[in-house]
């Protein structure tokens, strides 16, 4: 077979740009593809210095790499990433062609030339760039998710630490009432270890009768959705491992968990708080100076006992008393002595009424009362006399009294068998009038109120 002679025809047929340079950097060949790309024909290009058509190539940066090729050195590559536009030319759409150029030695006319093969890799590079960006976006997305996941985990750990360390007891139960979570604070107040209760029904932490009711609550909540306890706190009774019960404050939250629900109970032991409340309540019922019941407690007891007496058809007795010449006592002996006197008299009154339902109270400044359920007029007068003697026997020196050397009291008594058309104030009025009578009749004595005439003329008591 004959060797091909017309090498230019061959070069025009290949689908890459071909440029042949002499060592003097003159263009020896400029193929059809290059002519198409640049708009410069082969005739126009051949013989011209390459600097006129591709100035970049003759800068030292490129020349230092191309030069060795003329000495038969290894091929030189110019990658599209680092040298995209060695031969200035655009694609039909105006975008510069991205080129990959390989320079190899070529023997021509007995001298070594440089053959530059230029490939248009625009599509390839743009596609690669795009896929790289997509890849990067995917990586970024993954990183963001990982960060979010980490943040979530950190959050979960923090939450766990809070649950473990809070002073509030936290108990989580599922919709069947089975304990799923039991924190250290819960362990402390109930006396159980978490391992002993997790998996058991929360009923075990409740005394009867609450125990039996609890399932009903859950059932009602899950079917009806209404609850008296979700979201609002309330007081309940807990059962300690040792069997003892104690007051608890409980708030329950509901949380959706997968396709079910769980209930989060936050509890604290309010034993101390209850004790304090009890103490404060007791204090509020008492008179600050004398320690016996105060006026408010008496008023409440009077109403209560009046209604009871009315219901039961029983008489209700009342003694009212007043320390004789107390203002003079205070003036002559001082307020401290006055206070001591009030305390002593109060104790004396209190000790004279000893039945459980009886109630002794300080009514006003130096006035005291004794409320006596189921007590008729005679019995009330007897008790009043006992009080009078008791005070006299205290033998507190007075020094300014018209009636005795020591402190004495005047007393009025009354007793009513209540009827529906009467009220408790009438009893107080009667006793008060009797007390007035005792004072105007020489003091240090007991005066009983006259019997109240009933509407029908009958006498009560």
């Amino acid at each position, binding site marked *: 077979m004959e060797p091909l002679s017309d090498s230019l025809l061959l070069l025009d047929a290949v689908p890459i740009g071909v440029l042949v340079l002499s060592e003097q950097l003159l263009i020896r060949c400029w193929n059809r593809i290059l002519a198409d790309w640049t708009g410069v024909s082969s005739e126009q290009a051949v013989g011209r210095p390459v600097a006129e058509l591709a100035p970049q190539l003759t800068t030292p940066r490129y020349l230092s790499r191309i030069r060795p090729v003329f000495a*038969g050195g290894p*091929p030189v*590559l110019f*990658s*599209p990433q*680092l040298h995209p536009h060695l031969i200035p030319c655009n694609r039909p759409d105006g975008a510069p062609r991205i080129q990959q150029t390989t320079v190899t030695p070529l023997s021509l006319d007995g001298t070594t030339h440089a053959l530059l093969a230029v490939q248009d890799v625009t599509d390839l590079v743009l596609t690669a760039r795009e896929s*790289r960006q997509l890849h*990067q976006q995917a990586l970024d997305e993954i990183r963001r998710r990982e960060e979010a996941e980490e943040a979530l985990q950190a959050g979960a750990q923090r939450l766990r630490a809070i649950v473990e360390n809070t002073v509030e007891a936290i108990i989580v139960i599922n919709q069947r009432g089975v304990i799923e979570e039991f924190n250290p604070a819960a362990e402390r107040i109930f006396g159980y270890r978490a391992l002993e209760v997790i998996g058991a029904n929360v009923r075990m932490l409740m005394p009867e009768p609450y125990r039996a009711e609890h399932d009903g609550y859950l059932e009602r909540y899950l079917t009806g959705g209404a609850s008296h306890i979700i979201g609002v706190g309330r007081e309940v009774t807990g059962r300690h491992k040792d069997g003892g019960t104690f007051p608890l404050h409980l708030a329950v939250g509901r949380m959706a968990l997968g396709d079910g629900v769980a209930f989060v109970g936050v509890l604290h032991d309010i034993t101390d708080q209850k004790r304090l409340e009890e103490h404060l309540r007791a204090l509020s019922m008492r008179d600050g100076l004398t320690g016996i019941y105060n006026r408010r407690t008496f008023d409440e007891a009077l109403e209560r006992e009046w209604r009871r007496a009315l219901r039961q058809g029983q008489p209700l007795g009342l003694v009212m008393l007043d320390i004789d010449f107390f203002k003079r006592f205070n003036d002559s002996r001082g307020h401290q002595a006055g206070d001591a006197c009030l305390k002593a008299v109060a104790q004396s009154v209190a000790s004279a009424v000893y039945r459980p339902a009886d109630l002794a109270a300080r009514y006003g400044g130096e006035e005291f009362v004794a409320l006596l359920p189921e007590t008729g007029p005679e019995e009330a007068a007897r008790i009043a006399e006992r009080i009078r003697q008791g005070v006299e026997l205290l033998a507190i020196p007075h020094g300014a009294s018209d009636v005795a050397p020591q402190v004495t009291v005047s007393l009025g008594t009354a007793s009513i068998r209540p009827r529906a058309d009467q009220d408790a104030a009438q009893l107080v009025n009667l006793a008060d009038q009797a007390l007035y009578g005792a004072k105007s009749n020489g003091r240090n004595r007991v005066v009983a109120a006259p019997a109240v005439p009933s509407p029908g003329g009958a006498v009560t008591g």
Partner: protein
Amino acid sequence: MVRLSDDLLDALREVINIGVGKAAGTLNELLGHHILLEVPQVVVLGPDEMAAHLCQRPDETVSLVVLQFSGQFSGLSTLMFTSDSASKLVDLLVGEETPVDELDVIKTGTLTEVGNILLNAVMGSIGNLLGSRLSYTIPTYQEGALGQLLQPIIRQESAALEVTTRFTVQSRQITGEFLLLFEVLSFDTFVAALETALQG
């Protein structure tokens, strides 16, 4: 196999050093950063040593640029980057973070060119020294496990010149390993040419 005398080895080391220095200058321009170059280490490896040496880390992923040469002596000239070094290089050249495991056009093109620069510099220096005219193929790029890439090459070759060069760019250390693998008898020719060139 002919042994290289210490004098010859020294001379070879110097020639290669000059070549790598040139390459560093070219890379310097490409990267736009100053490149700090360490003196390359040159070791001659016999066939057994090659196998033993290269199989220490057969599973390591590497980037390999291969240039075949033929003429007075024939063989393969390869430049190998660890995937870590390869990524650092591409980062510096392209200015983007390159995923370590990714073989894409950009990485291939860029690394092939870097390999081309370094291999040409070394081969050019040796060619100049020996006055030998060699013909070369276009360099190719391969990426994969070291053992898989090199095992088939090593079996056919008789001796290797291993050149390890380290350069630091912008406080990043990049290590490249040249391996000049000679065909049977070619290494002897190479050594003889080296002796002649240095005596002359």
